[in-house]
């Protein structure tokens, strides 16, 4: 029961977080300085997601095989591999490193 209630509360809370901006702003446009920040939000957020995914707990959980796998995916993509193939190569590289 505890898990069901927790899931319900988190579902409602997560939904509210997405809706809060549109609910409070409505049709009002953001001022130009804020629009400039918004236009750069995607790369900043992606950088944060990569760091948090790789960092583990307080950056203490860095896994060399995982980091190497992600690097391989990046290199493969730079060498014009399609996105899915690049990611697959990264996963294979990490798996191979863990076998060693």
């Amino acid at each position: 029961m505890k898990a069901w209630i927790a899931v319900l509360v988190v579902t409602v809370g997560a939904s509210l977080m997405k809706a809060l901006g549109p609910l409070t702003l409505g049709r009002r446009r953001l001022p130009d300085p804020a629009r400039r920040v918004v236009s750069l939000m995607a790369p900043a957020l992606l950088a944060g997601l990569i760091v948090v995914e790789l960092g583990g707990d307080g950056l203490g959980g860095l896994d060399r095989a995982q980091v190497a796998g992600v690097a391989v995916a990046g290199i493969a993509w730079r060498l014009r591999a399609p996105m899915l193939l690049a990611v697959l190569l990264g996963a294979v590289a990490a798996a191979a490193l863990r076998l060693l």
Partner: protein
Amino acid sequence: MTRESFVAGLRLGIGPGAATFVLGVSFGAAAVAAGWGAVLPVVSSMFTFSGSAQFTLVTTLPTGTAAAAIAAALLINTRYLVMGIAINDSLRGGRWWRAVQSQALVDASFVGAHDGGGRFDVGRLVGMTVAQWTCWVTGTALGVGLQPSPDLLERLGADVVFPAFFLLLALEEVRSPRAAVALVVGGTFSGLAMLFLDPGLALLAATAGAAVAAAPIHRRARGDVGSPR
């Protein structure tokens, strides 16, 4: 929102969807192992639809109070407050209809729907999210059914899938000097915040990288704030 942009979003969502599927399998298995039973993991994936929050709940609920687990799960989603504000100018209709459309916000869709200059294609956003939602729920159901061990998934390199996708999306997104600054500063802020704060706040700290990159000191940088796709 046009049919074309929605279909384009569905296509764009296949890549992140594949990553989401793998993560969904992992979540389904972890949730069953944590005593959630067979139904709740799938219900959670259908309605909560937030991998980071769901994983946080699964890992923190058995070890602490429900209030602490809920707080941690919500904290990791605070970035959606910023993303909701960011996308509002591109939404149509009254505030309630905008709030409904904002439910399509997930990380990869937010990035994939960005047309540059702070404009977002809402059809593409929804299409990408539908693809990922389908994969997330299907993956969770499969994980509940098969219950692969987390150790097996890690040995197969499944933990590489999501950060690798984020890296490739980031490389695609960096189309101007300002975007490169946002990426580097956002990552640095996030890394520094990780040393002292919860991952949710570390993610929120990354968004400050956008503010730094957009500061007037960078106005003379060539390439401005990104070009339309």
